[in-house]
């Protein structure tokens, strides 16, 4: 009968040599994003050592590092880090459940959309930090109030990207699902959810950003734990080194969160070929 028309696979030896080239190139590739931060660190260190930067304005990275080390050994830093991390984790978890959950509801069901979407879109435009006084009145100045504000930060990007992810799917693909006899549940599982995933992941990254910002702010109100507290406290004693340390930690934690999401993206959105820049 029929001969396979496209039997030619990858030539194996050619594939292998290409693989080698890829590994060498990818080392350089992974290095490139770090070049700029490294250069900044080096210049910063040199300027501090030469006395161009007064220690009160900006201490040398090596000094910041040694302060960080002291605080780590004393157990002070891990304690604050853990508290901040736990707050972030709770806020992200609750924000994701609410944001993605409601986004799915309004994206999938017209009734939910009609009932909820315009109200949510209206609330979205309120800057979440404007809610601080209200949150304090509602929840007091304890953890609940902080969590509330961080959840608000995470909620909206997740809600919007989930909703949009589902609504922007190519209607032809839904027709395909119908033609091939998929039930409603199967349509959601095999078509709508995978279609929305890339958009949802963008939302997760944006949610991290906003949640993080709110974390920094709420950790300056009435608390004695967390990196925000550490920074705020250091300000009162003019400990620039600790302030810089806190800021660097925020940057690193933010980067770690972002990398985690990217990892997830690479793992689950492999089907999407992306424009990689010219």
């Amino acid at each position, binding site marked *: *009968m*029929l*001969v*396979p*028309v*496209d*039997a030619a*696979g990858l030539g194996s030896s050619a594939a292998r040599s290409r693989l080698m080239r890829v590994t060498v190139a990818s080392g350089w590739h992974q290095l490139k994003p770090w070049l700029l931060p490294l250069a900044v660190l080096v210049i910063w260190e040199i300027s501090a050592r030469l006395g161009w930067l007064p220690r009160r304005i900006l201490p040398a990275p090596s000094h910041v590092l040694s302060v960080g080390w002291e605080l780590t050994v004393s157990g002070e830093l891990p304690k604050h880090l853990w508290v901040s991390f736990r707050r972030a984790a709770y806020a992200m978890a609750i924000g994701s459940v609410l944001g993605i959950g409601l986004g799915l509801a309004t994206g999938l069901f017209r009734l939910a959309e009609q009932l909820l979407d315009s109200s949510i879109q209206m609330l979205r435009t309120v800057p979440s930090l404007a809610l601080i006084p209200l949150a304090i009145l509602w929840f007091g100045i304890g953890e609940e109030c902080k969590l509330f504000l961080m959840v608000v930060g995470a909620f909206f990007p997740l809600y919007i990207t989930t909703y949009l992810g589902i609504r922007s799917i190519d209607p*032809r*693909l839904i*027709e*395909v*699902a*119908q*033609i*091939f*006899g*998929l039930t409603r549940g*199967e349509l959601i599982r*095999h*078509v709508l959810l*995978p*279609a929305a*995933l890339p958009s949802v992941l963008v939302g997760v990254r944006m949610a991290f950003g906003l949640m993080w910002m709110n974390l920094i702010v709420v950790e300056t109100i009435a608390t004695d734990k967390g990196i925000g507290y550490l920074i705020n406290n250091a300000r009162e004693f003019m400990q620039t080194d600790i302030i810089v340390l806190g800021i660097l930690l925020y940057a690193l934690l933010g980067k770690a969160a972002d990398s985690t999401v990217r990892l997830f993206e690479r793992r689950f*959105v*492999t*089907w*999407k*070929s992306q424009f990689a820049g010219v």
Partner: protein
Amino acid sequence: MATNRVLCRGVSKQYGQSIVLDGIDLALAPGEAVAIVGRSGCGKSTLLRLIAGLDRPSAGSIDIDGKPLTGLNPHARVMFQDAALLPWKRVIDNVALGLLHAPAAQRQAEAAHALSAVGLGPRAADWPSVLSGGQRQRVSLARALACRPELLLLDEPLGALDALTRLDMQVLIESLWQSLGSALVLVTHDVDEAVTLANRILVMDRGRWTASFSVDLPRPRDRTAPEFTLLRNRVLDAVCHDPHRLAM
């Protein structure tokens, strides 16, 4: 004779002010293969969508197996003009889409079989985005064929293929159509293809039938036979004969 698999009576479709289909009649017996040819934009895909139940006619009626069509046509499988593969499913899972309700083992086996029949067995684990246009079309064809439908609606299934692969795919479609006994509606721009595969060729222009040919040549059809050439030329004449051509 058994009831018609598809019976369209006076089917019209209007989008806003423009009339896309204008009083189409079509009777399709079980096991019959009809080819529709016509200029781009004359309404061929629209008619297929109506028969598949993806759209409602503005006027007229469509019966499937003697019953009026309301909602989706459960017996029809469509191969869309643009392959319309799900980008997040690997090639093999795209082919298995219509077999979701079959047991897993059978699903895998039938999808793999259909895929190798279109010559893409080795690409089973690839993403659709890395396939060529013609390969995507063949995956889409495999997806439509895999579920052994009673009514196959193929919308320019081989448009992006080279001449040689196209011949292979025509053999495949013909053999599957014969073994399944399904009714087939084939939209094509290739008159040779229409004469090779169809029992009947309908020519459409601006939403109406302008000619109809029955093809009584023995199968498999010999493209070099004088009867074949004669019929092809007549169909070509009918397609090209267009009183409004200059006005367009």
